[in-house]
C-alpha cells in the first residue's frame, strides 16, 4: 500500500479535533487593528477568530489587516473589518470533510466548533497535512508495537502456560445473544494482531458453530476457543440430541431446522459447509447421537513468519 492511499484512507478516519490547533488565539470585536497587528506578529499567525463572550462572531485575517493598513484605518475596530458569520467545521467531523470545505471556499483557515457552537480550535491546510503525517507515523509505530507485543506475549505465554482459552456458554434458542462467543474470539485475535483474513475465518467458523448450538442443542452448549502461538482451536460441544447422519449434515442445503427458525434466515443448511470452508482442520463427532463435538483448527502461518523474521525490523 502506498503512502498516498494510506493518507487518503486516514483522511476518512481521522477527526478534525485530532489535527486542529486547540485553544487558538482569539481577539474581541473591540480590539483595534493596530493591536491585531501586534497579536498576529507575536503569535506568528495569519488570522484569528473574533470572539464576543463565548460566542464566535467573525474571523479576521492578515489580508484584512493589510487593507486596513492601506486605507489608514489602523485605529478601526476588528468588529468593523472582520468577516462576520464565518464558515466553520465541526470538531467531530472527519478530515476529508474539512478538505472538501477548503476546496469549496478557498479560505486559509476555518474555525472549529463543537456541536453546541462553541469555538474549540482552528484549522489550516498545514494542520491537516501535519496531522495526517503524524498519524501515518503513529500507524507504522503501532504496527511495530503490535508485532513486538505479539512476540513478547507468546514468549511469556510459552514459558508459562502455552495458550489462552476463552470459554463461552451458549444457551439454547437464545438468538438475541447468539454471536457473542464469535465476537469475543474476533476481539481476542484482533488484539493479538492476527491478520484480518484469519480473524474473518475464525469468526465465521465460531459463529456457525454457535448458531448450531442455539438452534439444535436441547440444553445449550459451550464454545471453547484456544489460541496458541501458531493456531486457534475452536471447539463447540453440547449434550445432544446429536447428529444421526454426519455425512448428510455436511451436505450443502441439508437442514433439520424447524420452520420458525428458517423464517429468521437461519437453518439454510450452509452452516457446517461454511465451517469446513474456513477451517484448516475440521472434526465433527456425534457418537450414538448422544452429544456433538465440533473441532476447528485454523493456523496463522503468514503472520508468524512476518513476526518472527528478525531482518524485518526497519520500516522507513
Amino acid at each position, binding site marked *: 500500500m502506498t503512502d498516498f492511499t494510506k493518507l487518503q484512507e486516514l483522511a476518512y478516519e481521522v477527526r478534525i479535533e485530532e489535527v486542529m490547533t486547540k485553544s487558538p488565539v482569539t481577539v474581541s470585536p473591540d480590539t483595534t487593528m493596530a493591536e491585531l497587528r501586534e497579536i498576529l506578529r507575536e503569535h506568528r499567525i495569519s488570522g484569528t477568530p473574533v470572539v464576543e463572550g463565548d460566542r464566535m462572531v467573525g474571523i479576521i485575517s492578515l489580508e484584512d489587516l493589510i487593507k486596513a493598513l492601506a486605507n489608514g484605518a489602523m485605529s478601526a475596530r476588528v468588529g468593523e473589518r472582520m468577516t462576520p458569520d464565518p464558515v466553520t467545521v465541526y470538531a467531530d467531523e472527519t478530515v476529508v470533510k474539512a478538505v472538501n470545505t477548503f476546496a469549496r471556499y478557498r479560505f486559509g483557515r476555518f474555525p472549529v466548533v463543537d456541536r453546541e457552537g462553541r469555538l474549540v480550535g482552528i484549522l489550516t491546510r498545514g494542520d491537516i497535512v501535519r496531522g495526517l503525517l503524524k498519524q501515518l507515523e503513529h500507524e507504522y509505530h503501532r504496527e511495530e508495537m503490535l508485532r513486538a507485543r505479539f512476540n513478547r506475549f507468546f514468549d511469556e505465554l510459552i514459558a508459562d502456560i502455552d495458550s489462552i482459552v476463552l470459554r463461552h456458554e451458549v444457551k439454547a434458542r437464545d*438468538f438475541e445473544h447468539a454471536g457473542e462467543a464469535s465476537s469475543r474470539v474476533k476481539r481476542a485475535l484482533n488484539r493479538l494482531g492476527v491478520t484480518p483474513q484469519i480473524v474473518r475465518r475464525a469468526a*465465521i467458523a465460531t*459463529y456457525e458453530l454457535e448458531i448450531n448450538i442455539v438452534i439444535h442443542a436441547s440444553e445449550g452448549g459451550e464454545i471453547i476457543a484456544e489460541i496458541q502461538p501458531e493456531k486457534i482451536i475452536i471447539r463447540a460441544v453440547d449434550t445432544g440430541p446429536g447428529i444421526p447422519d454426519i455425512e448428510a449434515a455436511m451436505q450443502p442445503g441439508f437442514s433439520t431446522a424447524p420452520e420458525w427458525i428458517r423464517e429468521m*434466515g437461519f437453518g439454510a443448511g450452509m452452516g457446517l459447509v461454511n465451517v469446513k*470452508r474456513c477451517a484448516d482442520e475440521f472434526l465433527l463427532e456425534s457418537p450414538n447421537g448422544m452429544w456433538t463435538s465440533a473441532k476447528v483448527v485454523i493456523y496463522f502461518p503468514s503472520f508468524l513468519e512476518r513476526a518472527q523474521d528478525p531482518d524485518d525490523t526497519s520500516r522507513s
Partner: protein
Amino acid sequence: MKLAEICRALSLEVQAGAEHLEREVTGGYASDLLSCVMAKAQAGNIWVTLQAHPNIVAVASLLNLAGVIITEGVVPDESTVAKAKEEGVVLLLTPLTTFTIVGKLAAMGIAGVD
C-alpha cells in the same frame, strides 16, 4: 462511496449508527439467509435484507459490514436497534423491496462480491 451518499440518494431512514455514515461502502450483498451472508459478504459491504431480528447485528458486526438496509418497511424491534447502537452497526430502513434497492445501488455503482 460513503454510506451518507447512499442514504441521501435512496431516502433511507437511519435507525441506528447515524454517527458512522462516513463509512466507505466497498460493495453490496443481498440475502435473507444468514449463513450465506456469513460466507459471502465482505468487510465494508452494504447488506440488503428483510430480516430485522437482533442477530443481523451480530452478523454485520462480525463481518465489519458498512451497514444493513432493511427493506419492505420492516421495522426492527427495540432490542435490534439497541444492540446495533451498542455495536456501532448502521441500520437503514426503506419501504422499497430488496430488488428495487439493489437495482438502485447497482445504478449508483455499488458492485456485488462476485
